[in-house]
């Protein structure tokens, strides 16, 4: 039973992190119908920035909690800046181009950012310090769930709530929903669509950065390539839940997290990625719109 619980909670943690990244995909897709392939790289840059800040501050001799907060904030700021710039360079000029063009441009951006980090930093795996202290009250449950995992779960929940509030109750959230329904109409009622798209990218990047810092301190190491696989997995999660739908992305992430966790726990760990992709293929065959997505009807 303990093993089952461990796998269950492991899947939940994994799912939370996928959810943080998947939100960015799903929000961007909801608004401009583009798979932001570079999203995984934004997450990787967030983690790298955090690592750099942590290393510099540790040398200066600050205490751990302060370092954690500063690193998190800087990582979020830089990820947002990268997300914003990527949108302006690679996607904005292609807003009216065929979808294939925008998709290829996104792949190019992803390739560029990976190699940019590879060349400017290193191709080796770098150890990422675990900054989250072990909580004393967690001691009796340590064999099932660690402190880092608890922090991940709580952070994810908080981010989800904040995001829901942003989209449901604020002015910009309203504008976002309007834009995702009908871009032209939104423009006609006076919404600055370009600004809405920028904000969407920035918000998506921010959640990805939070995910990046959390997963890096959970796994304990990063390299330039971590963003790609995590990005694809998160995308799979977003599709599972129904792309464009925010609750769907969260649900899809948990389902994917559990699938992987149980499959590796009970079957084999060699084929971890295979399970994720097989699951995606099956979902797309039997329910192409995803778990919570609505199937579109095309008007001709």
């Amino acid at each position, binding site marked *: 039973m303990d093993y089952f619980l461990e796998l269950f909670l492991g899947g939940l943690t994994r799912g939370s992190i996928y959810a943080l990244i998947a939100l960015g995909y799903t929000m961007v897709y909801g608004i401009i119908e583009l*798979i932001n392939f570079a999203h995984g790289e934004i997450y990787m*840059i967030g983690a*790298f*920035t955090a*690592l*750099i*800040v942590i*290393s*510099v501050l*540790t*040398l200066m001799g600050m205490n751990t909690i302060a370092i954690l907060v500063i690193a998190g904030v*800087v990582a979020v700021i*830089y990820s947002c*800046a*990268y997300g914003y*710039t990527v949108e302006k*360079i690679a996607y904005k*000029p*292609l807003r009216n*181009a*065929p*979808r*294939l*063009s*925008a*998709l*290829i*441009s996104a*792949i*190019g*951006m992803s*390739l*560029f950012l*990976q*190699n940019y*980090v590879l*060349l*400017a*930093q*290193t191709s080796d795996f*770098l*150890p*990422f*310090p675990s900054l989250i202290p072990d909580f004393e009250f967690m001691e009796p449950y340590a064999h099932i769930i660690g402190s880092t995992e608890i922090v991940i779960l709580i952070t994810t929940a908080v981010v989800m709530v904040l995001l829901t509030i942003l989209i449901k109750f604020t002015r910009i959230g309203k504008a976002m929903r309007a834009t995702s329904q009908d871009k032209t109409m939104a423009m006609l009622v006076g919404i600055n669509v370009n600004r809405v798209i920028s904000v969407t990218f920035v918000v998506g990047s921010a959640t990805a950065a939070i995910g990046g810092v959390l997963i890096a301190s959970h796994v304990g190491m990063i390299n330039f390539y971590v963003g790609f696989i995590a990005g*694809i997995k998160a*995308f*799979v999660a977003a*599709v599972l839940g129904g792309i464009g739908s925010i609750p769907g992305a969260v649900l899809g992430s948990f389902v994917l997290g559990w699938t992987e966790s149980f499959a590796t726990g009970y079957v084999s760990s060699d*084929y971890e*990625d*295979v399970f*994720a*992709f*097989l699951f*995606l*293929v099956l979902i*797309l*065959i039997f329910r*192409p719109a995803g778990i919570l997505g609505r199937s579109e009807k095309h008007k*001709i």
Partner: protein
Amino acid sequence: MITFDEIKKAFLVSIWFMFLTFPIMVIRVNPVEHIVEWRWKNMLVVGIGSFLLSFVWNYLMKRKELGFKKAESGEETGTIPLVQRILGEKKIYIPALVVAGIFTIAFPFIFSLYQTNIMVSALIYVMLGLGLNIVVGLAGLLDLGYVAFYAVGAYAYALLNYHFGISFWIALPIGGLLGATFGILLGFPVLRLRGDYLAIVTLGFGEIIRIILENWNEFSFGPSGIANIPRPSLFGINLSVHESTIYIYYIMIALCLFTVFVVNRLQDSRIGRAWIALREDEVACQAMGIDKTKTKLTAFSLGATWASMAGVMFAAKTTFVNPASFTIWESIIILCIVVLGGMGSIIGVIAGALVLILMPEYLRAFSEYRMLAFGVLLVVMMIFRPGGIIPNVRRVYTFQGVKNTDKS
């Protein structure tokens, strides 16, 4: 010409990029030894570089907008690109073809073994590019797992040879058929998907095949791969390494010519026009009575056939296969070839493959920047020249008037 506003803007851009690249470019950390290295020189480079590039970017953007305006006001935009115009002129085109032909035939005797070897790899990529061109360029299905079929071909030859001692010439058609089968197998589930879903599912398939090859030791010998694959035989004559490289070179040339011939004929055939129609508008295409399922499946399986044959060739050339040769980046390089050359344009894809594969070989000093450059290339090409270096010219039917045959 350059106004004060533009300079101000470029200045702001350069400040922004200096801020953006600060942690990654300037600081390099070594968390193991707790060393932090500050590289202020990089910041200067980024600042000046982005300052200058912002002018280039603005200039190109302006030109692009000008092009749009021209198209809107209906001015002559249908200027045929230079290369295509040359190809249209028989007087230039036939001698050029003859010279190119003689050069290709004489190539292995003029240049060294090393050069011939590089040329063979470039030709393999020409074949892969032409195959992917069917899927992406003609049918408009973005396939990011194309390398899976390449792997199928390579492993088909390697394994058939290992277990049953089957020779290259029998493995080549078997590999092709196997590729076609895999193409259909992969095609079925993804038929209902639109562009972006398709991209991610094919990417997933590519990774699945690679992971299986890596982990299923009993079947594929795992990451260590299969060695000692025989080179192609020539009627049982024993060839030295040098001779067999030349021999492979000629086989490759023949295969490429065959590919060009087939793709060229396909393009103008009923099925080829169905692909193009499908690419342009699925709904309209179905309304015209085109069977979507059949059309997509043929595109997939034909594309896969070429990839598998290229894979058999690859195994025969390197005499060694392992899963590391079939990563997702290989798929992306092939995609780069098609995009750079011009989607749907045969001559463009050939040019694209030769440029992208030969250039890094001769610019060894820059080889680590290769993937970085490919990334920039994909973005820049899509924004400023979506048609590629040698864009495909759309077939235009001109009304040539009614011939007065019956004068009675």
